């Protein structure tokens, strides 16, 4: 027999009382700081406390680098699944899932616009689309971007965020490396500037082709950049990798990058570089972006 009898009142509805905080806050992966998302966005998606650079999607990248409007090209290109690849899930299915999720047909956006007043061709890779991996479509779009840049003599910027060649398109992906690099040889010969921006992560076939072939190769702080992924290396040498290995600062120290630039300063840095490459003493041509005529 109980001494006290609890009056069972119906629980009050909490519906009206709940404060919706979900999705408004995020945690810094590096310093564990809880950050209000609007603060994060206002700070170029870098942690206000430790300046850890969060990954950003391709469209955010375009907004960050272009002055205003831009024109997108070749957005209709989509893979035809050359190997009919199927692992646990068919590659075709994976593709259409990704297309729904990202609203893109593949892992890169090619766009034309202006950067601090200069016309540029910009390719921004989308890491959320199968790890930003490069298959036939990414290869073709980037090659077309290079050819457009060459035909119009407009500087090229490629922002990489990619795990490398796309396994599900096998050797077809591998050949994109050769194709893009050959196109870059032509751009190089024509002396049209190409700035490569490496962001977290840039590895495998992407690093081993266009990402390392810029007239300047600049990276965002703390980005993972390398050829082999850290897990593969650990398995090969059977030991833990040192802290900071394959990060931007490590590469800078080893002479593999021209600069590590904070995201907030990136646009200015690129503009300076383009000015360096394209400035002419002739007043009429100085503001325009055209490179000096080929010899």
């Amino acid at each position, binding site marked *: 027999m109980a001494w006290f009898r609890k009056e069972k009142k119906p629980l009050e509805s909490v519906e009206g009382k709940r404060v919706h905080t979900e999705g408004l806050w995020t945690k810094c992966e590096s310093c564990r700081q809880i950050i209000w998302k609007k603060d994060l966005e206002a700070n170029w998606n870098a942690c206000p406390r430790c300046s850890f650079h969060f990954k950003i999607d391709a469209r955010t990248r375009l907004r960050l680098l272009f002055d205003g409007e831009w024109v997108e090209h*070749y957005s*209709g*290109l*989509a*893979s*035809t*699944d*050359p*190997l009919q*690849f*199927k*692992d*646990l899930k068919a590659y075709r299915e994976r593709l259409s899932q990704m297309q729904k999720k990202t609203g893109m047909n593949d892992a890169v956006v090619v766009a034309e616009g202006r950067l601090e007043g200069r016309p540029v061709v910009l390719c921004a890779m989308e890491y959320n689309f199968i790890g930003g991996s490069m*298959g*036939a*479509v990414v290869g*073709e779009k980037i090659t077309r971007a290079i050819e457009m840049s060459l035909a119009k003599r407009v500087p090229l910027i490629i922002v990489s965020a990619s795990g490398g*060649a*796309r*396994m599900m398109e*096998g*050797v*077809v*992906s*591998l*050949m994109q*490396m*050769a*194709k893009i*690099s*050959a*196109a*870059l*040889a*032509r751009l*190089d*010969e024509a002396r049209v500037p190409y700035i490569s921006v490496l962001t977290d992560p840039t590895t*495998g*076939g992407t690093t*081993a*082709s*266009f*990402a*390392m*072939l810029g007239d300047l190769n600049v990276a965002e702080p703390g980005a993972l950049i*390398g*050829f*082999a992924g850290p897990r*593969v*290396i650990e398995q*090969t*040498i059977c030991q833990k*990798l*040192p802290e900071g*290995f*394959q990060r931007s600062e*490590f590469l800078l120290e*080893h*002479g*593999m990058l021209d600069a590590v630039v904070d995201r907030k300063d990136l646009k200015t840095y690129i503009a300076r570089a383009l000015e360096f490459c394209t400035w002419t003493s002739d007043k009429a041509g100085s503001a325009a972006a055209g490179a000096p005529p080929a010899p």
Partner: protein
Amino acid sequence: MSDDPQPPRQELDALQKRIRELEQLASEPEAQEKLRKMYSLLEDMKEGESPDDPSAAEPAPPGAWQRVLLARHPQRPYFLDYVQHLFEGFSEVHGDRGFGDDTAIVCGMARFQGQPVLALGQQKGRSTKDKLHRNFGMAKPEGYRKAIRVMQYAAKFARPIFTFLDTPGAYPGIDAEARGQAEAIAYNLREMARLPVPIIVTVIGEGGSGGALGIGVGDSVLILENAIYSVISPESCAAIVWRNSGKAELAAEALKLTAEDLLKMGVVDEIVPEPPGGAQADHRAAAALLAPVLERCLSEAAQLPVNDLLDRRYQKFRKMAQFWTGE
């Protein structure tokens, strides 16, 4: 792909041969006894193969996984074996003039049917000591930098270039990363695209991803019948998608890495036949089958004026493997 779990006969033969060799090397009687047991076990397996099996009389073409095994066969001719049979007066050129000499890539001046040429390729080792010396055919940045340096030397004096691809991949290690493995390969891809001399590429064994491609841009890309070319090793692919490297056979099938598949996809220009059973059976015969193809590809490329040659090379890769729809 056959469902037969048994390895093919020639593999059993090769294994037995290897065991015999080991037996001669083994000093302890206990070890010799064990090896003899293994030998007879293999003998039993061979007898288990029914001779009435029609597939034994008319051997079916090897499946993808068997091709992988053949491409990695320890007795398969390596780059220097082809050098011995295809070229005369091979004189090695060492070093990248910056860091060191990578022994996983060998470059040298040679004569091909009387004409001075450059021959270079990835070199695997056969004995344990040799394997370590060659780092299993896995080059580091200095290897790729040596290769392009020597190719530019050849181009300066208008000498054609033959490259031979046979590597599990570029070396994935701390030192290689620190010295810019990716940059070294990327640089080679761009520079090989515009070297003003004919470049004939042959995949002789394992075409392991970017590590192979790093010396693999050219006017003709040939592949031996049992060689493979892939963006990733079947084991790594299996480890990623099935989380089990034991599913490598499935992965080999899915990756479409055999010579026939590559020809169909337009990634290689021609398949070079091998002697019956595979190149490992007869190095001299394998080289003899390759020589006329190399000669034809070279004379085709050598006829073209330099600008046409470079244009053709560009278009070759530009138009390769167009697998997309839409605009």
